[in-house]
């Protein structure tokens, strides 16, 4: 139990530092940045502790907002996906989720990709919706969502492959 706790604490801090110091300065083609910190929300253990993940996601988002001077947009988007996570899990993993036996290291790649993509696209859409804050610029919002999502999904999948522990 303690090792799980420490793994997630370290991941929380490392992802914030990574996001603030490196990923927010990529600015690919001028404005496209990956928001990899949602990996923390995606990989949070699946049990019935929804309260914990909602509170932790809010904290994660709020810390990023303080660093990036962005009001509450990261907090809002993170809380939203944290709350909606069981939906994505159900959609991507089906019956495995019902029995609460998912381990992210063991599930097949396809459903993991579906799950992560759903989470990312939803998060980014809320994020840019709150950032631009006007429905008249919906094209800009969708454009930003699309490009940043592709970037985040690619990076997220790469990270999970690199850092996953091999189970034999």
């Amino acid at each position, binding site marked *: 139990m303690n090792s799980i706790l420490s793994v997630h604490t370290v991941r929380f801090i490392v992802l914030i530092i990574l996001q*603030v*110091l490196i990923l927010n300065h990529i*600015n690919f083609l*001028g*404005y496209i*940045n990956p928001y990899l910190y949602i990996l923390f929300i995606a990989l949070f253990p699946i049990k019935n502790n*929804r*309260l914990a993940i*909602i*509170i932790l996601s*809010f904290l994660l*988002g*709020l810390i990023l*907002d*303080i*660093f*990036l*001077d*962005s*009001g*509450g*947009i990261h*907090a*809002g988007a993170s*809380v*939203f996906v*944290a*709350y909606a996570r069981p939906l994505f899990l159900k959609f991507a993993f089906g019956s495995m989720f019902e029995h609460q036996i998912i381990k992210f290291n063991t599930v097949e790649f396809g459903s993991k990709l579906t799950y992560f993509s759903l989470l990312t696209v939803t998060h980014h859409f809320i994020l840019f919706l*709150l*950032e*631009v*804050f006007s429905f008249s*610029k919906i094209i*800009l919002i969708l454009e930003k969502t699309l490009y940043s999502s592709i970037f985040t999904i690619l990076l997220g999948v790469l990270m999970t492959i690199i850092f996953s522990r091999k189970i034999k």
Partner: protein
Amino acid sequence: MQQIINFIIRFKNFLLFLLLFCISLTFTILSHSYHTSKFINSANFFTGGFYESFHHINSYLDLNTQNDLLSEENRNLRDALYNNVATSDSIFTDTASYDHNYKVFTAKVIKNSYNIANNIITLNKGYSDSIQQDFGVISSKGIIGIIEKTSANYASVLSILNTTSRISAQLKKTNHFGTLIWEADSPAFIKLIDIPKIAPVQVGDTIITSGRSFIFPKGVPIGTVNDFNLDRAENYYEIKIKLFNDMTNLEHVYIIENLGSEEIKNLLNDSADE
């Protein structure tokens, strides 16, 4: 009572989500209104200190370009000094002729931002260096923004690349003035609206600050006209301006205090009351 408690327990996830989501929404809305006191900003000692310590490392990577910029500025200043002619091209010759109405501080950008809709820049000077809200911030090439909030050692700047920013600007050759806005598209361009139709605008004209806001002195360069057209009502021009400043590459900046701003504000308030 029992039922209320049961209800809360049953829907605790949803209620918590709703609460936290509303809090973030409030922060977002607060950040969209100009000059509301904000809890969420990077000018506090923790994030400011964090950014500054990493800025020490990063600044080495950019030394060449920044040196070029500074030496170019020195060249301009020497040029003006030896020729002793007040060219309104350069803000710093202007400052001399203002009869000490403006005080200039130097500062460094420790966190720059230009790719979101509401960009805020963090500087390494705060109220212990007598920096206060509503001071103007410029670089050697043009305007950058207005100080929004200060902590002891850091200040956050509402960048001109912020959709809530409104700065008064005018044509250099005539005195027709309008408002600078940004529409969250490209960090190299900004829009000037409310220029009357009668103004003789041409592509390539220089745009400067108008000095009407009492934050910036008159004559700080902003950019050149890239494109212009009439707005929907066909009474005013909407002018697309190419900025002189490269907002993506900022390091040394100057903070300007208008020593007369208090007096002017009092005067205006008095005459408004009558």
